[in-house]
C-alpha cells in the first residue's frame, strides 16, 4: 500500500488547508491504482458542506451539534461525489482518496474519521497550525473498521514551496479576493 503524488498536488492541499483555516478543508484525489500503489493525477478541492448547517445536518446529522461545526467536521455531499466520479471516469481516472485538514490538531485520524471512513481509499490529513500548513500523513481503513493503517506517501518532483504559505497568508488578509 502507498500513495504517490506530485509536489504540485501536495502544494494544492497545503494551500487549500491554509486558505480555509480555521475551518477544515476537504477535497478529492483522482488517480489510478497500480499494484497497490495509488498514483495521484489530480487533486480537486471540494466544498465542506458543514458550512451549510441545514443541508449538512439533513444529510449526516451530528452527534453533538453544539460542539461540532466546520471547524472540526467536514462533509462532502454525495451528489458532489457522483459528479466528480463521473468526470474522473471520463478522463480514465478514479477516486483513489480524499484529503482534509486538521486545524491546530496533529495529522492523525480521529475516531470520527475512522467511524466514517470507507475501506481501500487513502485519507490524507494535513495539520494547519495557526494558519500555516504543517505535516501530512495518509491512512487506509483496516478491513475490520477497527483501525486506520498509516501508509507511505511518496512526493515526486519539484521543490517544496516556501511560496505556498506566503500566498495563503496574503489570501487570508484579503478574504474578499
Amino acid at each position: 500500500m502507498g500513495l504517490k503524488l506530485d509536489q504540485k498536488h501536495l502544494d494544492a492541499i497545503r494551500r487549500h488547508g491554509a486558505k480555509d483555516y480555521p475551518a477544515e478543508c476537504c477535497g478529492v484525489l483522482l488517480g489510478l491504482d497500480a499494484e497497490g500503489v495509488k498514483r495521484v493525477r489530480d487533486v480537486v478541492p471540494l466544498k465542506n458542506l458543514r458550512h451549510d448547517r441545514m443541508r449538512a445536518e439533513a444529510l449526516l446529522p451530528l452527534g453533538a451539534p453544539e460542539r461540532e461545526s466546520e471547524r472540526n467536521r467536514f462533509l462532502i455531499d454525495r451528489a458532489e461525489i457522483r459528479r466528480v466520479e463521473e468526470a474522473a471516469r471520463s478522463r480514465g481516472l478514479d477516486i483513489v482518496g480524499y484529503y482534509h485538514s486538521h486545524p491546530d490538531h496533529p495529522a492523525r485520524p480521529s475516531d470520527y474519521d475512522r467511524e466514517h471512513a470507507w475501506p481501500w481509499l487513502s485519507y490524507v490529513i494535513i495539520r494547519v497550525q495557526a494558519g500555516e500548513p504543517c505535516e501530512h500523513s495518509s491512512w487506509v481503513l483496516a478491513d475490520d473498521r477497527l483501525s486506520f493503517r498509516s501508509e507511505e506517501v511518496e512526493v515526486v518532483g519539484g521543490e517544496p514551496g516556501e511560496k505556498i504559505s506566503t500566498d495563503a497568508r496574503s489570501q487570508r488578509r484579503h478574504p474578499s479576493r
Partner: protein
Amino acid sequence: MGVKVIIPTPLRQYVGKQDAVTINASTVAEALSGLTVQYEALRKHLYTDEGKLRSFVNIYLNDEDIRYLQKDQTPLKDDDIISIVPSIAGGLNLRCICR
C-alpha cells in the same frame, strides 16, 4: 433478470472485483440484504452492528436518492439500477490532548 447494484470502487474488493452485481429483489431492502448475504464481507461497511444502514451510505435508485422515495421499502422493477454512493465525512477528536 433482476436489478443491477453498482458497487463503488472501495467495496469492489469484497465482491470479487466486480463493478456491478445483479440481484433478484422486489424492494431496495431486499436487494441490499441479498447483496450482503451473498457477499458477507460487505456487511460491516454498509450496516452498523445494530443492523442499520450507516449514516454515510447513500442509496440511489436510478438517479434518485431513496430517502426521497420510499426509503428502503422503495419497490423495484427489473432493470432498475441501484447505486451505493458514499458521503465522505471526518473531523477532529473533540477532546484532544494535543501538545
